[in-house]
């Protein structure tokens, strides 16, 4: 297997102010399925096009934002290997026992210098609905809502993004695919564990631990248009789009969940190979980098986070 170590984003745990409206949003509008409800009230969601138990966790809280983003690694021994490397790098690693979240094996966790908690896990049970594997039709359950196919990536805001860049590349073996801003004073970094244009991204921001958006992958530009119809029909709070990002080339809409957490639906994006050079955007082209058609940032991009 050429793709080893960290495979992909596994799940993100979000804080929501009101659970019923959050479930309506993520299930009926985004198109996810509810897998289960935990004894502590956390809700576990997935796309029908994902095999693993869940990819989005909702936790009722008094503030919006994210608790943790977790990545899946290829095998259990990777957790020990990464624990040693993370500890050697100087970060404190803690341990979450299996089944703290249903269907998920043991996890290791640590805090980034941007104030975000990251976890790694190797084992996830599968849950229904999931893709077919024998003579596989394109879907088993008919897609609904925006027809999200997976939790794709997150953009996180906090300080010290260049330290995160160093950590992800040198400890977790990610590749940097794109950067914004001058070397030594980067505004944003885009990081991939595999062949996607990004699995996680960070932008410099004075307050630690902030969420800019979580993104769901759609099949194509037609589905982005369909998502826009859903956003208008159900009066979902829109940020911008449909448009395209210069960074990643993804076709996109930014909007907000009922607790104010920014969501994205996203289609396309370039294919990345680990031998590819880093693509860079200088400060004079930051508008085009973020919103390719508008060529200018909106006020909310830099200042609105949870």
């Amino acid at each position, binding site marked *: 297997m050429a793709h080893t170590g960290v495979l992909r984003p596994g799940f993100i745990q979000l804080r929501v*102010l*009101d659970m019923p409206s959050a479930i309506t949003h993520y299930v009926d509008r985004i198109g996810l399925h509810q897998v289960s409800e935990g004894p502590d009230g956390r809700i576990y969601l997935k796309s029908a096009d994902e095999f693993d138990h869940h990819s989005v966790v909702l936790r009722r809280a*008094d*503030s*919006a*934002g994210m608790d943790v983003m977790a990545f899946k690694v290829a095998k259990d021994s990777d957790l020990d290997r990464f624990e040693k490397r993370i500890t050697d790098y100087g970060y404190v690693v803690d341990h979450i026992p299996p089944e703290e979240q249903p269907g998920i094996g043991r996890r290791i966790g640590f805090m980034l210098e941007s104030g975000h908690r990251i976890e790694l896990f190797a084992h996830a049970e599968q849950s229904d609905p999931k893709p077919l594997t024998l003579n596989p039709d394109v879907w088993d359950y008919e897609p609904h809502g925006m027809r999200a196919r997976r939790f794709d990536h997150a953009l996180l805001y906090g300080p010290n993004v260049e330290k995160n860049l160093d950590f992800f590349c040198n400890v977790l073996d990610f590749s940097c695919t794109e950067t914004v801003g001058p070397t030594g004073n980067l505004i944003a970094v885009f990081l991939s564990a595999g062949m996607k244009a990004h699995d996680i991204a960070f932008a410099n921001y*004075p*307050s630690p*631990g902030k969420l800019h958006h979580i993104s769901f992958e759609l099949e194509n530009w037609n589905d982005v248009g369909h998502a826009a119809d859903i956003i208008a029909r159900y009066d979902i*709070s829109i*940020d911008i789009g449909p448009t395209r990002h210069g960074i990643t080339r993804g076709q996109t809409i930014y909007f*907000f*969940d*009922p*607790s*104010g*957490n*920014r969501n994205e639906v996203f289609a396309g994006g370039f294919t990345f190979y680990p031998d590819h050079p880093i693509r860079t955007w200088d400060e004079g082209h930051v508008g085009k980098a973020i919103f390719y058609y508008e060529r200018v940032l909106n*006020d*909310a991009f*830099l*200042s*609105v*986070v*949870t």
Partner: protein
Amino acid sequence: MTATHFRIYVKDVGAADCNIDERVLVALERAQGLGQLNPLPCKLPVGCRRGGCGICKAKIVTGEFLRTPMSRSHISVDDEQAGFVLSCSIYPRSDLLLKLECSTKTGTKGKKVISNEEENQ
């Protein structure tokens, strides 16, 4: 007949019509689009419109309203008792007089940016 819409007066700035089932911030956005909030010193601070990001913080000077969930990171218990709200997360139940908490400041590149008075976790 009971009222179905109210006037939202923004201190020193102007006034907007707001339906009883409409978020106050959304009514202000429309009023700004119609040129009714001209003296506003900055673009109306619109963020998530759902009580999470805190950018539309305002103080209610007078009037009654229905409150929906808003982040405690931005409206603490003390703030709430002092009359602060996120204007995206209230619905009018009478005419309202409010004061926006946003400020304009000039960034290093001379670009006007909007920020909250205080940055809190």
